[in-house]
């Protein structure tokens, strides 16, 4: 009998070699902790207990939490779109003075640490707007979420709007369509992928928001994410936390999938991007909404800044820098173990480490998922890798942080006292954003350029220098800034991992607002301002680099 030869399939060795390091890192520092955390829930006493998990999902409180998460995220997403779309139009299609400055300013809320957003809104709602009875209500939470996410809509939809070919709209106008009809029948269908994509990302951020809900919702309103935190830290109900984590992971994966399907396909050559035109009287509604949005974004920040510069004296309060000077102390009533300035210093160091880690990993990931594929097996592996590296975006930072705590404390990986624990966690949180910034840039390089360079006699190194580096250095710098801003403000995972004696600034702020005493609160405001200024400056520098796509933005 003749032996049948199996078709020889080329295994994607090179691709796997390139991806090996990030895969290993993700396996140890992401899959292991998450699996460990979830495992604790499913096997509380060493044997499987699925019934217990299902019981958790039947609890009335869990239903309330789920319902609150869904409706508050839905309302916040709708409000974000309503405010963001007119602003996207105004800032990307109209020729206004200071357009770039306003665009950059509206980007700042997105990179503000969530704790700072919470503190700023509380300061606004208990201070200048205390006559509005919305402090501690869902409205406050939703306002915080909108504030945080509006930049996503402006950036994502604005970029699509800006590069939208003007000619279909002109063709419709020439056929007799008025401005509103043109918008409804031509512009909106063309923008739909960008709008739906932005909306799904915003919903995702709202539904997994931790710092904003925790600082503004207190104990009365909890989302799935804060509930996981509460169950693990205060109630030690790991089973409940694991069940909720799994539920959240499932929903997020579905949302990410939808988002990926709808991600606008960037045609690298928009043949006729329109010139921004001067505003007309008909643009008044959009201009008014944009102005309102600016006021909405500026108000909490202004309240935060003013609050940090006022100290109580006698009956009233006066201007002073005392709150900033107090940052060198440990606060009243022993709120802190180390001065806040030490925390700032530590935050910056950790953020630098985390940024470097995220960059190296992100670059390897981006290179491996944009590699030219030669076979179907290779394409499949590449697709799987791409999805795998996006997972950290979907898993709650709280789950990740807690998983670190319970799995990385014994051999083979014992990092309990390692200074690398927090940077690694933060790098993982920042990784998807870095990858999403680098991949479009790398993917946009026409492979024929490399082939052309090769045919002219350039070796691999020379090809990279000539073709890839000139395209990549801006996105690389931008994603470094982005990763830095995210790390400096990271709260969800860090709140588990940072110890009292080496807390980062966001953790310190949260601790300060939890302790009684006007001095502590003043310190929290001052520290928030410092943190906000740090991330804002980094982001404004990034904005100067004018990278077309920033992470999910």
């Amino acid at each position, binding site marked *: 009998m003749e032996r049948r030869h199996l078709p020889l399939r080329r295994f994607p060795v090179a691709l796997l070699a390139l991806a090996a390091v990030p895969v290993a890192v993700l396996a140890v520092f992401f899959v292991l902790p998450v699996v460990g955390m979830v495992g604790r829930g499913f096997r509380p006493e060493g044997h499987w207990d699925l019934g217990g998990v299902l019981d958790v999902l039947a609890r009335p409180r869990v239903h309330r939490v789920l319902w609150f998460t869904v409706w508050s995220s839905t309302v916040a997403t709708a409000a974000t779109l309503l405010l963001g779309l007119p602003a996207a139009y105004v800032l990307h299609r109209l020729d206004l003075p200071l357009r770039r400055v306003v665009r950059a300013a509206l980007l700042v809320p997105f990179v503000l640490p969530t704790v700072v957003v919470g503190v700023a809104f509380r300061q606004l709602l208990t201070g200048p707007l205390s006559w509005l009875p919305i402090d501690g209500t869902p409205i406050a939470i939703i306002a915080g979420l909108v504030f945080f996410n509006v930049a996503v809509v402006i950036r994502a939809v604005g970029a699509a709007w800006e590069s939208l070919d003007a*000619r*279909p709209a*002109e*063709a*419709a*106008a*020439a*056929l*007799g*369509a*008025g*401005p509103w*009809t*043109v918008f409804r*029948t*031509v512009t909106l*269908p*063309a923008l739909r992928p960008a709008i739906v994509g932005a909306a799904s990302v915003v919903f995702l951020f709202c539904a997994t928001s931790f710092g904003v809900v925790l600082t503004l919702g207190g104990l009365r309103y909890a989302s799935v994410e804060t509930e996981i935190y509460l169950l693990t830290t205060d109630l030690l109900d790991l089973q409940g936390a694991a069940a909720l984590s799994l539920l959240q992971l499932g929903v997020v994966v579905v949302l990410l999938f939808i988002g990926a399907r709808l991600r606008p396909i960037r045609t690298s050559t928009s043949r006729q991007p329109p010139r921004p035109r001067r505003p007309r009287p008909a643009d008044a509604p959009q201009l008014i909404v944009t102005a309102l949005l600016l006021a909405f974004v500026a108000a909490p920040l202004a309240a935060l800044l003013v609050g940090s510069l006022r100290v109580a004296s006698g009956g009233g309060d006066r201007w002073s820098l005392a709150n900033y000077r107090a940052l060198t102390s440990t606060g009243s009533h022993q709120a802190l173990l180390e001065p806040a300035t030490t925390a700032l210093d530590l935050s910056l160091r950790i953020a630098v480490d985390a940024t470097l880690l995220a960059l190296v990993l992100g670059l390897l990931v981006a290179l491996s998922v944009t590699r030219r594929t030669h076979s179907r097996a290779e394409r499949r592996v590449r697709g799987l890798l791409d999805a795998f590296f996006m997972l950290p975006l979907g898993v709650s930072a709280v789950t990740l942080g807690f998983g670190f705590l319970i799995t990385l404390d014994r051999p083979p990986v014992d990092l309990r006292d390692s200074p690398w624990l927090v940077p690694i966690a933060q790098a993982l949180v920042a990784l998807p954003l870095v990858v999403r910034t680098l991949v479009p840039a790398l993917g946009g390089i026409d492979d024929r350029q490399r082939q052309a360079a090769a045919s002219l006699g350039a070796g691999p190194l020379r090809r990279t220098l000539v073709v890839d580096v000139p395209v990549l250095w801006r996105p690389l710098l931008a994603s470094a800034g982005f990763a830095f801003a995210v790390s400096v403000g990271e709260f969800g995972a860090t709140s588990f991992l940072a110890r009292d004696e080496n807390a980062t600034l966001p953790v310190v702020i949260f601790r300060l607002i939890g302790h009684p005493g006007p001095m502590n609160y003043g310190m929290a405001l001052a520290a928030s301002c410092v943190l906000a200024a740090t991330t804002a400056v980094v982001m404004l520098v990034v904005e100067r680099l004018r990278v077309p796509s920033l992470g999910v933005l």
Partner: protein
Amino acid sequence: MTLSLRDVSVSYDGAAAISQVDLDLPDGQVLAVLGPSGSGKSTLLRAIAGLEPIAGSIAWDGTDLAGVPTHKRGFALMFQDGQLFGHLTVAANVAYPLRLRRVARAERRRRVEELLALVGLEGYGRRLPLTLSGGERQRVALARALAVEPKLLLLDEPLSALDAGLRERLASDLRRILTEAGTTALLVTHDQEEAFAVADRLAVVRAGRLVQEGPVGEVWRAPADPETALFLGYARVLTGEAAATVCAAAGVRTGGPVALAVRRSALVLAEDGPLSGVVVSARATPDQVRLVVDVHGVGQIDAVASSGVHPGPGERVRLRAEQTRLSVVP
């Protein structure tokens, strides 16, 4: 029912794209605006459509159109690549302007079928633009533009995106459709053959200025200046002694020194021709033999011979000049 442009200028950031154009287009005529790419001809078209801010005045029937937005002008604009709406079917694309005018459903359907038949695309209604070839897409765009029953149809390089054979066929179709519908049209193109095939009148634009305007035959016979002559397909422009020699050979009387535009086929190999020269090169084409001849008193110049003869380089030949293929340029 006349379009008239008076002293129209368009500038981008201070740089003039169109300067001081005067133009009239009578009812029912097709005018081709011909110019090399970058000459500002598309800008002129967009200005007429109301898509560019202008200085000067554009009027329809004596009424100034300043302040009338694009969608209220009643002109239809057809883009170089059609600009069909990708999310609508062919029928829905053609029906788009009819819906805007609230034409009843039954009437709308009838009109769409009629228009698709006019452009030779019966039964294409349910297809999506993406599934059509380039030529089919342009036909749909034309049907959509005609659905407006426009007072004036503006066509921006309607055939340039197509390959040569299709372009030729569609050009004669376009001519037929426009005359059948009695549409006043303004066509912008860089291709002189397209202009000749479709238009009644010709306006030549160069560097933002209107150089010459008139009936197609007239412009073609008498180009206003040497550059226009070259752009209209004349092979060379002769001056001085060379021009005088060829003029004398063709029997053209001139009052003094002139420039003479000659087409490639102006000089023809003839036993008893008045000119003599030495063949520099010869290249056979299916219809004729194309020569370059060094003619005494003229220099190197193109000539043709019927495909029967094939003179080789270095051979002495005699040539005559065809009066209809020459043009004296002022």
